[in-house]
């Protein structure tokens, strides 16, 4: 289709039409912005401002090498265990506690200060304490994930429930909806966008929690890949490990957004 247009289009029209196609499609925009970022990265490395800074292409080569020899896969198997357990616990307890706090003042009184303290506490300072109590095993790492992920999930769920429009609540009441119907038919769907925003933040925090734990408690999994490659000065490999965990976090968070739209917000599907 573009070819029959370009036949009689002026030269200037070609680039503007190309730019138009890019800005019209959100996916193309994302690809373009990533390509720009990687190009800048590569160029910055080629100026040789720092010998420990590998370019994008070197990093990708190292990434491929680690995927091919299986070391990347083995590392992720180790890392995913505390991450998934920690996230499952954080989601379960965080969402339940947040919704309960939103629905009931007595639960809010009892529970909210705990989550606010957890959110405010500097995580890195607490890791030695966790290690002291729970040792250097799986439990400590799971706990590190929970401590980072759970407060933001709980606090956002709580705020989401409190933010539901009072007139929607009145509406449900005026049509004789029971409290149960009000919660499941009005409050949860109305709160879901903000709740999911919290879940996305929480999952992102969980990723930093697990890396922090693997760097500070005992080097395992992806944290081991990062610290080991740094210690032997294989910087491209170190960057590749960092790159992979960032990419995984971004992809997970985007998939969560898609899940939210399919589950709770049919009107957003209809409009896009």
């Amino acid at each position: 289709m573009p070819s029959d247009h370009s036949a009689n289009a002026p030269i200037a029209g070609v680039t503007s039409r190309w730019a138009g196609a890019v800005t019209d499609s959100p996916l193309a925009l994302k690809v373009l912005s990533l390509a720009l970022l990687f190009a800048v990265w590569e160029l910055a490395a080629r100026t040789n401002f720092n010998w420990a800074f590998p370019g994008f292409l070197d990093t990708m080569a190292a990434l491929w090498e680690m995927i091919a020899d299986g070391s990347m896969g083995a590392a992720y198997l180790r890392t995913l265990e505390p991450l998934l357990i920690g996230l499952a616990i954080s989601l379960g307890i965080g969402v339940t506690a947040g919704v309960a706090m939103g629905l009931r003042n007595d639960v809010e009184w009892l529970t909210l200060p705990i989550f606010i303290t957890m959110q405010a506490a500097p995580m890195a300072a607490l890791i030695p304490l966790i290690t002291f109590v729970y040792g250097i095993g799986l439990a400590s790492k799971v706990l590190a994930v929970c401590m980072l992920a759970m407060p933001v999930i709980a606090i956002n769920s709580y705020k989401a429930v409190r933010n539901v429009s009072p007139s929607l609540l009145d509406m449900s009441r005026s049509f004789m909806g029971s409290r149960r119907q009000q919660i499941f038919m009005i409050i949860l769907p109305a709160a879901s966008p903000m709740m999911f925003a919290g879940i996305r933040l929480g999952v992102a925090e969980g990723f930093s929690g697990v890396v922090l734990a693997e760097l500070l408690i005992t080097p395992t999994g992806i944290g081991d890949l990062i610290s080991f490659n740094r210690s032997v000065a294989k910087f491209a490999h170190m960057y590749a490990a960092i790159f992979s965990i960032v990419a995984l976090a971004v992809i997970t968070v985007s998939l969560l957004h898609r899940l939210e739209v399919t589950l709770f917000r049919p009107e957003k599907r209809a409009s896009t």
Partner: protein
Amino acid sequence: MNMTRQTADPASARPVSPAIIEVDGINKVYAGDVVALKDIHLEFNRGELTSLLGPSGCGKTTLLKIIAGLLEPNSGEVRVNGQPVSGPGRERAFVFQDFALMPWATVLRNAAFGLEVQGMAKAEREDRARHYISEVGLEGFEEKYPHELSGGMRQRVGLARALAVDADVLMMDEPFSAVDEQTRRKFQEDLIRLREIEKKTFILVTHSIEEAVYLSDRIVMLSPRPGRVSQIVTPKIDRHGDPEAIRRNTEYLDLIDEIWANLKGYVE
């Protein structure tokens, strides 16, 4: 007297009062010392459209929400069909100022909400919702979402939802205040036509004198701080035929002036 006649015709056995809703000595105080309503006594007659009219702060919405059972009065009683009520009921339906539609649900599901809550089967409630959606003039929009509709159309969904539960009393809280003037006029004309089909009792809260006079059989004027009934007028306007003609009716125009002269004193 005659037992057989009485059992044959049970309707004649209970006294039919013209008042479907009685408001008896309602007081409402907000946050300690703000007196929103003071000693309100009112009756709303079956089949009539009564407007609660007054400047902001006169407690008209508060009164409507108390009648709806959404707010508790500090003292006094609301009776529906002679029975005291303490909460929302099947015989009353509410139309909200901000529409109160579920943004994640289609027009059809929004309009059927009251029936869904009552536990009516899906096919049946959707049939009824479709009927009222077309009655308010939204046929063809059943599968749309609220954000795809204009303000006026959204309020029509709110109206269809209230009509669908087949309540005796429809309570409307400034239903036209969030829509533009042209839409409001069209909506008011449609409401007159709708009243001829749906024999219901309407209670309408409004701050617009024109709207109250245009639509109402009875206008209850409230004065602010504390909210009390200042005056009740009953417009005698013939609303059959052309709805446009009402706006040129001398009775309509005179009454607007008269009410404005009365309310002026409360506006600072």
